[in-house]
């Protein structure tokens, strides 16, 4: 008590600063979707994005698997498919591997190496360290496809439906709850 009483100005100052910081951060969270995407706290689903020029609107989970594992190399309009992955260790990557590829990280690594070795896949997936990078990449490359949390996208890319279900709709296969449950 004596300590507290003696240092009341200091505590007060620290509290004021903290309060200020907390106050100041709040609007930026609300006003900047990219920042909220980076924070990792928003978005309950895994969404797949393609370039706006892409004719693809809807894919089945199987299609997604084939695309991401390099079994399909071209889109129906002839554009080369470029897969964009997020860095190892991210929740999205783990959830993606689990839900789409039905693999864990080591399985996937082995698969990629094997595919490269056999020549089944050329170049392999492009790996980007952030969701924002993924979105930008997809927006720049006509044949690109990547995944991010819902809410981390913007107008520069197109979100595709899975089995005809948009991420916001009921019955979307890659909900966040499921995502959280698939953690190892």
């Amino acid at each position, binding site marked *: 008590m004596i300590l507290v009483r003696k240092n009341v100005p200091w505590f007060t100052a620290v509290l004021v600063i903290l309060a200020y910081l907390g106050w100041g951060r709040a609007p930026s969270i609300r006003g900047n979707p990219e920042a909220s995407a980076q924070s990792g706290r928003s978005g309950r689903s895994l969404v797949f994005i393609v370039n706006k020029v892409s004719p693809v609107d809807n894919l089945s989970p199987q299609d997604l698997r084939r695309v991401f594992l390099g079994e399909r190399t071209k889109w129906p309009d002839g554009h*080369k498919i*470029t897969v*964009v992955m997020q860095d190892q260790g991210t929740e999205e990557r783990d959830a993606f591997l689990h839900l789409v590829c039905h693999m864990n990280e080591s399985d996937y690594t082995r698969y990629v190496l094997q595919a490269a070795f056999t020549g089944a896949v050329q*170049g392999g997936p*492009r*790996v*980007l*360290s*952030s969701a924002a*990078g993924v979105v*930008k*990449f997809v927006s*720049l*490359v*006509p*044949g*690109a496809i990547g995944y991010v949390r819902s809410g981390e996208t913007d107008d520069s890319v197109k979100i595709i439906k899975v089995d005809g279900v948009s991420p916001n709709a009921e019955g979307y296969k890659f909900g966040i709850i499921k995502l959280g449950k698939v953690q190892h």
Partner: protein
Amino acid sequence: MLSGFCGCKEFIQWVKSVGQGRVDRVINMTKRRRFEATLLLIGLIVAGIGGFAIRDLRRATQETWQMHSDMVHALDLITELQYQTQETRRSMLYSLTTTDPNLQVNYAEGSRAADKRVIQLIAGYLNLTPSPLGDVAGKRLLRDWQNYAKTRDDVVALILEGSVKEAVQLDLRAGFPSFDRVRDDVNGIEQIYKRRSENQFAEVKRAFNRSILRLGIILCLSIIFAGVAVGQLEKGQLLEAIQGSEARLREVIESINEGMCVVGRDGLVDLWNRAAEVSLRRRRQDIVGHPLMEVFPDLQESRLAAGITEARQNGTTIVLEDLQLTLEDARHIFVARVFPFEGGTTIFFNDVGERKRAEKVQAATFRAAEAANAASNLEDLFQSTHAIVNDLMPAKNLYVSLYNPESETLSFPYFIDEHDSTPAPRKLKGGLTEYVLRTGNALLAPPKVVEELKEKGQIEDIGTPSVCWLGVPLKKGDDSVGVLAVQSYTEGVTFGEEEQKILTFVAAQIAMTIERKRAEAELTSALQMKSDFVSFATHQLRTPLAGIKWSLELAAQEENLSEETASFIQDGRDSAQRLIGMVNDLLDVSRLESGKLKLAPKETSLAELTQGVLKDVSHQIEKQGHHLSVSGMEGIPTVLVDPQLFRQVILNMVSNAIKYTPSGGKIDINMGRENSLVRWAITDTGIGIPKANQAHLFEKFYRAENVYKIETEGTGLGLHLVKMIVDKSGGRIWCESEENKGSTFQFTLPLSGGNG
């Protein structure tokens, strides 16, 4: 001041100097004003030039600034455009240099952002109306850029896909050429803009040159205007100065109290001043522009016409005195001074009538004073005074009235009147005479004043009433002893202040004379009484003295007298002798003074007289031990004097020399001729006469202070008698003396006619 001009040369000099001074002053002032005006105009010019210059420069500056800002803007745009186009390409190429997709994405993103800015810039250019880039060039640039951007997007996509080889191939095939086109477009725009700027600059330069030219023209015009303005100003100033000078000159001319007339070469009168109007009785408008001789026909006959001609010919100043000119009222006397000059002749007329009159008055008053002095009796005085007064004023009727305070009567010792006869002495009444006597003041009484006084009860009518009466009191001290009055019965003949002044002066003279006559009469009678008494007394004294003297002579001749008795008798004889001498002296003086002693002049030789005297006094000289010397006796001319009296003169002087010279002194008698005079002098080495006493030496009963030490019995009559005799004989006597050294007495006498 002007009246002090006796000559016109001085006057003209003065006028010239006044005028010149004023002109000089004005010229100086004009110079100063010119300087000020020049300064002012220069100021105006500078201000005007400054204003125009500022306006033009401002315009030029605005244009230049506009050009500059346009250029800067354009350069900014072009630079930005160049930079951003380069940036898109550079960023794209950077993305080629790495395999990290993160970096590649970043670079690509940068490239795309730059692309967006390029599009914005171009759109900005194209939105401007008119477009600084030129519409065609701008649109081409936009098209080219869109082509390039498309290719670049493809290349970027390929890079990001990892298809580097394809990307490079695509860029080389399409991207690079299209970028080149874009670059060319931008450079083209830069060129266009530079050209435009040059044009704009050239236009500004032209505008600037134009304004310089305009300024030059304005400057020239200003200088011309300034010159003209200064010239006008100067002209105005000079005109004003000349007018001022002329006005002043005119004022001066008008203020001269001498008539001034300028006659031009054509003989017409140019100038006629106010004094001329007054003194010559001609108005200016009647004479200016007319020939002088026509207006004054008299002048044609006079010497003036000849004088003017002469002055013109010789170029000299001519003074014409006593120029007679009959004007409307009377004959006037003028002095004219004629001054020729280039443009004609200046004539100054001076009416000397007034001056002559003043001179006459002065002379008359002097004469009145003289008459007063010379008049032997009052009747003569009154007559001569009347004559003098009559000269000066219409004083036909003049009377003098005297008041006798003892009998309290008024008498009229002099009375000349056209109407009335001399009134008898009367007791004081209420006439004008009594009024003046009572008040003690002069009275100038025209009928109006007389009426007023009558109404007040101050006076009443006595005798015939006059048209004008003027009376002044005769005063003795503060008392009025009489009245001098003049009166006129002629209508229009009146008196004024001047007459009063003259009369007052004459009255003072008369009063003085009356007073003096009275005093003289008293004095004469007193002197007569004294003289009579002395003469009587001396005569009466001489008879018993003779008896005493003779008795003593007889007693001295008696035998067997004791020595003591004999000495008593001798003392008695000496005293009697001295007393007889004194009585004789007194008698002589008294006779001489009363005029009873008549001189009996004869041709007399002073040398003989001197020798005779010296013989008589030789024993005294010896007794005193004096050294006597006589010189100049030879050839001394005779003089016409009374020998008896002159013997006494010489004896007196010799005995004085002996008496007042201590024993063993030197006595020197010298005589001789000096021009028409005979001089006789005696010099001794005696006690002399103090300077202070010398002036009174010849006065009756006067004795010098230092003689009492030597002899106390002198009467002071001797030298008085000597002087009287010498004076009566037409000679002169005087004395030079120095105390304790000696004296010289000498007299001179005129040569008698017989000596030539």
